């Protein structure tokens, strides 16, 4: 079973305690944005086979949202970090690069 460590309460939570919240670090385009930007924000997704950054909620625990970095091809969990981060912490990115040289992601918001 997938387990993720909640960065708030520290619990190593089972998947049954968590809710998946989809891709992380989307730029929330609103009024004034172009149609393309708004379309991409609403619908377009990275959906990579490999390194993926995503949002999770510790629903049946402390209730807080947080971020996780996982590999969708191996299901390896690289780490979790707080919801307030606008991009993954540098140590986490370095750790991923060491394991998956050459991985890329669109610009973080």
């Amino acid at each position: 079973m997938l387990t993720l460590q909640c960065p708030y309460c520290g619990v190593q939570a089972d998947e049954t305690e968590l809710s998946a919240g989809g891709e992380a670090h989307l730029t929330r385009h609103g009024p004034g944005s172009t149609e393309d930007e708004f379309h991409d924000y609403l619908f377009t997704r990275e959906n990579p086979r490999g390194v993926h950054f995503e949002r999770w909620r510790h629903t049946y625990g402390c209730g807080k949202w947080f971020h996780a970095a996982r590999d969708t091809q191996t299901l390896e969990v690289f780490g979790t970090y707080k919801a307030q981060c606008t991009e993954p912490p540098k140590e986490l990115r370095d750790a991923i690069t060491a394991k998956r040289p050459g991985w890329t992601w669109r610009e973080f918001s």
Partner: protein
Amino acid sequence: MKRYSAFAVAREALRNHIGWERAWRSPEPKRHYDVIIVGAGGHGLATAYYLGKNFGITNVAILEKGWLGGGNTGRNTTIIRSNYLQDPSAAIYEKSRSLYETLSQDLNYNVMFSPRGVIMLAQTQHEVRGYQRTAHANALQGVTTQFISPSRVKELVPIINLSGPRYPVLGGLWQERGGTARHDAVAWGYARACSDMGMDIIQKCEVTGVRTEGGKVIGVETSKGPINCQKLGVVVAGHSGVLADMAGFRLPIESVALQALVSEPIKPCMDVVVMANTVHGYMSQSDKGEMVIGGGTDGSNNYTQRGSFHHIEETVRALIETFPMVSRLKMLRQWGGIVDITGDRSPILSKTPVEGMFINCGWGTGGFKSIPGSGWGMAELIAKGHSPLTDAFGLERFHEGRFIDESVAAGVAH
């Protein structure tokens, strides 16, 4: 190609079956094709078949990274129905269902289409209203469905418990000509017919790049070297995002795991398909006697064809309330496939930002039923640039806010 027939079976029985030929050739790729289809699942093979049959385009290769039919086509629970809510959906799914009626004859291959009837149970007041609305919409669309009473449900499904404590059965949406077919046979039948038309099905050939020149597709890179083409059809279900990335664009698609399981074989006990969408479970009985069971998708992105165990548990738990006899069954095996989910739960059959490259994806949890109709429309789209069956399913609908919203209508959309 030698035709299959009762006579052929008798003839071969008398001579130790030495006269059967291979169902399809396994050629090496040529340097150039008019059309390359990526993905030898049901949708890719059907697209190729109707390109040949309806448009006379037979210089076609179908490239498959694994074995043909080894993706979702060989992993699904084979429910066929066309009781969708929106008009464009009803058009393509009903076209598909009606093609299934004569598919065995068309392909000279027994796909074991079994129009045994499909019931979608209404277990909340919300569902009662929703399915009554769908039945009315279907009447206008020319799709034969009916909203039936609990007692009619019980007649059709004697093993059902109508008065479950949480979710009593309040009625059902009944499509009498829905049913099941043999999934592998659909892929194999189309493959045999494509090969017979001179098309090359190349297995163990992974597409690793899309080659373009001036915004136009000119071919693909593969594990068997570069192959050129005039037009490219990408039909790779859960891997659509990976192929789009090779061509430099992104899709409104997420890939997640969907699982199914079968029980030990038991005597015939249920001769229709039953779906319980509120509780996320559905069930039918295979010809071998196994109860074929499926449920909902995982919530997180995944490319591993393995899903979360707790979803299996949830599905079985839900079914036990409605079918108490399930609690006495041993489950034999369980598996997963990677399904391609769009925001409005409707597929994408579309041109792409790359000229000459077309994409067919987003069938998600419910694209087995649509294999013939999707192939029919996709072939027309590739051959002529548009098709009345596919026009509403273009990628531009997300830009225009013109969704074909089946997420409310279908719930569990198999």
